[in-house]
Structures are given as C-alpha cells and as structure tokens.
C-alpha cells in the first residue's frame, strides 16, 4: 500500500537561445513563475537549440518559455521544436515565446507548434494565468 501524497509541480524551462545577451525579461519571467509556485530551470545565455532541447527533455518540463530578442526566431525556434519532436517531447510541452516577434512572423511560429507568443508589455500575471490554464502538468 502506498500512502504517499502525490506532489506535483509545474516545471518550466526558461531559455535564451542564440546570440542574444538580453536576459532581463527572462529573469523577470523566471521570478514570476517561481512566485507562482512553479519550478523553474533557467538555461543561461547563448544556448544552441540542441542544448535547449536537451534541457527540456532531461528536465521533463511542462512548459518551455523561449525568450528571444535577436530577430533569429524564424530559424531557431523551429529547430527547437523539431528537436523536441525527435525526442517525443513535443506533444506534452507547452511552448511559449517571449520577446520581439513581428506580427507577420507569428502565424508561421504558431504553425510550427508555438502555443503562445507574448510581446513587450505583457503582464507576468497574464503569462502565469496562461500557463496555469494550459500546462499539461501530467
């Protein structure tokens, strides 16, 4: 007989990809997630897409938040998603993108598998609420 109480937590990876040294936003969102009671793994700066995939797979995160302000999102983000698919880790991961994403690029990213894109001015409450509503949290 097992009397353990299940102890679930929403696990998130906050990731910075590519040549982009601006991590203030990533830090703010990491703190907001932490304060919301989530477990946040922070990738650190300048990660290659495959490093982010590795981290997301190994940490078995429910949410992958990619912060990108370099403009290279159309190249880098599909690579991350492709990598997740190759490890069978795409379906159960909520993929969020934060940063400067031009309006005309959004449909393509969403087509690729991004669940939501949060631009400048998004409140942290909004992002947290979105995660609460949509993260699979197994």
């Amino acid at each position, binding site marked *: *007989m*097992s*009397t*353990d*109480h*299940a*102890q*679930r*937590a929403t*696990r998130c990876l906050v990731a910075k990809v590519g040549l982009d040294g601006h991590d203030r936003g990533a830090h703010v969102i*990491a*703190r907001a*997630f*932490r*304060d*919301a*009671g*989530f*477990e*946040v*793994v*922070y*990738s*650190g700066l300048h*990660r*290659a897409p*495959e*490093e982010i995939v*590795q*981290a997301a*797979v*190994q*940490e*078995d995160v429910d949410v992958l938040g990619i912060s990108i302000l370099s403009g290279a999102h159309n190249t880098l983000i599909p690579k991350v998603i492709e990598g997740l698919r190759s*490890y*069978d*880790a795409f379906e159960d991961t909520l993929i969020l993108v934060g940063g400067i994403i031009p309006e005309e690029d959004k449909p393509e990213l969403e087509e690729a598998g991004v669940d939501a894109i949060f631009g400048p001015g998004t409140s942290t409450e909004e992002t947290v609420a979105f995660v609460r509503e949509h993260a699979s949290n*197994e």
Partner: protein
Amino acid sequence: MAELSDANAQLYESLLDGDHTALARVITKIENRAPGYRDLLAALHAETGTASVVGVTGSPGTGKSTLVDALTKQYREAGETVGVIAVDPSSPYTGGSVLGDRIRMGSTAGDMDVFVRSMSARGRLGGVSMATADAVKALDAFGKDRIIVETVGAGQNEVDIVETAETVAVVVQPGSGDDVQLLKAGILEIGDLFVVNKADKDEAAGTVADLETMIHMDAAPAAGLSAGHHGPNATDSEPAAVDDGGWTPPVIETVATSGEGVDEFRTALDDHRQYLVDSGTGEGRRRRQAETEIRRLLRADVGGLAEEVLDGHGGIEAVASRVARRETDPYTVVGELVDPLESAVEESLATRPEASEK
C-alpha cells in the same frame, strides 16, 4: 517483482533501452510520487548497483556546480557516462523555485550522455533525500557509470546526502569563517574528502590549514561518528591518504573555473571508492543506506495508516477540539487511535511464528 501498469511497463522497458525521454519521465513520476511510482522503483531496484555515486555538498556560492561540471567533463573524456542530480531549495511560501545549477553545466551541454536533472526540495519532510535517492536509482538502472548528486548544504539536506552517496565531498571556499564554523555538527562528519575551491584566493592556505587541523582532531580517539577517521600520521593535503587502519579525508585545493586541481579531486574520489572496496566498509555503508531507506518507507506508510485511523475518528480537527476543550487528553486520544493497530500487529505476529525465527 511488482506488477507494473501498462504505461509504467512501457516506461521501464524504454528506460532500460536507453531512452532519455523515458528516463526523464520516470524521474518525474518519482518526484511527483505519481501513481505506481513505487512499483517502478521496485522493478528498477534489481537493475541498480553498478554506478559510482558521489555526493557534492557545501554552502551556496562555493562553486559546487562549476566543480561538478569540471568533474563531469573529465569523466566524459574518459569515456564514461554521467548523471547529475542538482538539488536546489524551494520557497517555503509558494513552493516555487529557480533551479540554476544547469547554467554552470556548460562544458558538456548538448552531450546527451550527460543527463542533468534539477530537483527542487519541494518542502518535503525529511529533506529531499527520498526523491533524490530514488532518482539516483533511475539513473543507475539506466546505466550511467557515474552519478553525481549536488545539494546545497543548508541544514539537514547535506547530512541526507550520506544516505545516497558512496563518497561525499564537502566543498568550502576560502575565508568561509573560522574553525568554529567548521566545528558545526555535520560538516566534518559527513565529508569523505574536502575541497577548498577558489583556491587561487588569498585565504585559501588558511582554510586548508583549518580544515586539516579539524580533521586530525576529529581523528583523535573520540572519533566514532564517522566512518572511522584516524591515523596520526596523515599530515599532508595530498589525496590518497589511505592507510590500513582507515580513511583520513584529504583536503584538495581546486580552481573549478580553470580546472586546476580537478584531476586530484577525481583521483581522490576514486581512491575513496577503492578504499570502500578494499576495507569492506562499502558494504556496511550500503547496508546502512538500505536500513535508512526501509525505516523511512516504513515510517511513511505507518504514518499514513495512522492518518487513516485519524480520519476515521472525524479527522484531526475534531479530535483536537475535544482535547482543547479539555474533554479528553492527547494521551488517551492517541491510545484509542493506536489500539486497533496494536491488536492487529499482535495478531499478525502471533499467526506468523516463523517471523520470530530470524
């Protein structure tokens, strides 16, 4: 072996096949105490016991993660696969946490044969040791050659690491307080070896000297708490201070950021592992770890039974109110609650005479 649900049987097979995603999901189940996790662990148990498990602990900011990264790199260069479990504290208020150790594991990023998993303390009773020990089993069964458990040394957690690791390295940084700090219970007793990281700092020599003095004082006749430190002639900071009578923890200086001293660190870890084999103390250690684990599970399950009995009596609040109103007292209450358990235990022992034979 336990019966696995279909989903868990699949996970189990995939894990043994070397599927990284399956390994990650098994650890999640373990962490979440998800349904069936015990059956999974029961099945995995037979597959474990081959990995070398090292614990690295120390105060925040001493450079544990960087050191673990440097060590991992060396293991990889030697062709060994590595699993790392990095434990960070969680907020006691929200339960949330930022797990930042992964940032320091840069030198092997992208290498799937290094499996890094960040774990939060999740405010668990008994520290994180149960979930950590269980996650170590998953990595061991997966076939990792080396497993490193990194915990922040805050209070009880660092003592818990002893229950998981074969070899415990305590990392300190220069100038981290006088020898009284090092006297604080727990620090000296748990270290099989000590690392003074950031050894390029001025105060390093003093910290090394302090540590060595304390270790040798600890090696005096009264030493009994730890794995038998003694030997009056252990006078140097060279690793491999093994003598026939026991193990004297070496003090190693490293600069993890440059890789200086990491060779010596790795050698000292291997020396200790060899010592455990040669002296036979490793066996005792493993048995004690199993004892602790069994006791803990037992306590958790019996505690769970007690909770059920309590619920059957209207729950803690109802019972407590009666006590608070002085209608009864806590001793009578607990006596009443435990009575049926007690008689069940007596009955089951009476019907199993063979249980008393051994």
